[in-house]
């Protein structure tokens, strides 16, 4: 599903030598089906702004609530888009989502297991 064509940023955009990948998530929605366990569905995430980030165990206090919320928003948005598009195309899932902020690639590598990659516009153009 391609929603909105991307547009090029101003000429003062950062160099493409900066990391292109904004974030990467590996998650399984069935692992966290309640609000209190939602974070457990993400077993790995990378966020370029933080330079790295292996997913923390559920009891890791280092992980800030802000970061967790950000992860859940990204994952939840991807799931929402995938489910929404599934209604129109049950046999051919969403392959990419293009926005003005870049593009997102959700891949169901195994049944229920997703890898979600987000590329930011600053790094694309």
């Amino acid at each position, binding site marked *: 599903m391609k929603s909105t064509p991307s547009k090029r940023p101003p000429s003062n955009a950062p160099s493409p030598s900066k990391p292109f*990948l904004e974030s990467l998530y*590996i998650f399984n929605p069935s692992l966290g089906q309640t609000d209190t366990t939602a974070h457990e569905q993400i077993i790995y995430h990378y966020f370029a702004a933080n330079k790295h980030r292996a997913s923390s165990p559920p009891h890791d206090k280092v992980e800030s609530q802000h970061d967790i919320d950000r992860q859940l928003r990204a994952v939840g948005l991807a799931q929402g888009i995938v489910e929404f598009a599934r209604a129109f195309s049950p046999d051919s899932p969403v392959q990419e989502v293009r926005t003005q902020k870049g593009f997102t690639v959700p891949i169901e590598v195994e049944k229920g297991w997703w890898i979600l990659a987000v590329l930011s516009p600053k790094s*694309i153009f």
Partner: protein
Amino acid sequence: MPSPSPADLITPFQLCNLIWRAYRLHRLQFRTFTHLLSVHSREFLVSIISPYYEMFVRELDLTLSKNGVEMDFDALRWSCEPLNHNTQRSLGEWTRKTKSEASDIINVLLYRQPRSNVPYKASGDGLLFAGLQDGSLSPANIRDISLLVSHLRNQQVEKKVTTNGEAVHKRSVNLPSASLSWDSVVQTSSNLFSALSFGNLPAKRSPLSAPVDKETKNGDETGMNAGQNGNQENGDWLIGGDKEPKKVWLEVTSEPLVPISLGNQRPGFLRDLSNSQLLGEDNLIEVELSIYKVLHILIPSNNSTPTSSSCSSSFPPVSHQNRF
């Protein structure tokens, strides 16, 4: 005019392929997510996969940032055009006949000699034919086969040591135009296939870049590998051999084409089902592939459209097969 930034080459499709490749290698190494979670705890799963994907992310950034990124993307930019119907039928008949004479042959793969090429343009070489499969190969088939062979090649390269004891980590060539020095070439007769349109395969992923197995070369009793025309590149067997058979995994789906999963080691998630025909949790079954090297044998030029007999004459006898 400055050349376009490598970043401009990034597309979701390319990113998707890179992720799939990473996942398939992960599956080869650690088994599936589902299996890991069913056997181990979530914490163990995280501890296993985190370092792997950390490395993937770092390498991905480097891959996307470096100047030569277009070469990597060139490896993903290819298409698959099957052999024409007559040729496929001829090769299929030959393959089935050969298999009937040697029951241990599961499949036959043919590869084409590389051609010089220009950057950004997919090279016109690679896998031509997967014998016993009906129909053409999908792009996923070819990608996975190339990944398999690439994986095998890396393992073999690690064993090589120079005369002064220094380890050699030889990599496959990056530039399609510089790929003429590939170690081994499994090729069909140029006369046989010159008029045909073949599927493309990226140069750096191509099985043609795999080194020659020394044992296999020594085991080639007829010396058909390079002796006929004196050209080492035109005569070597690919890799593998009876002493170390290679295996791949076929994914059984409702699709007419059979995607081939990579790996030369048996995935653990299939281990419990080895003696049955039941499918694994991800619909994979194990098979062994035999790869034949087709020598550069000249065929009279009037055979522009190959027949079954002409195909047979261009293939090595069964005794010269390599199991893969």
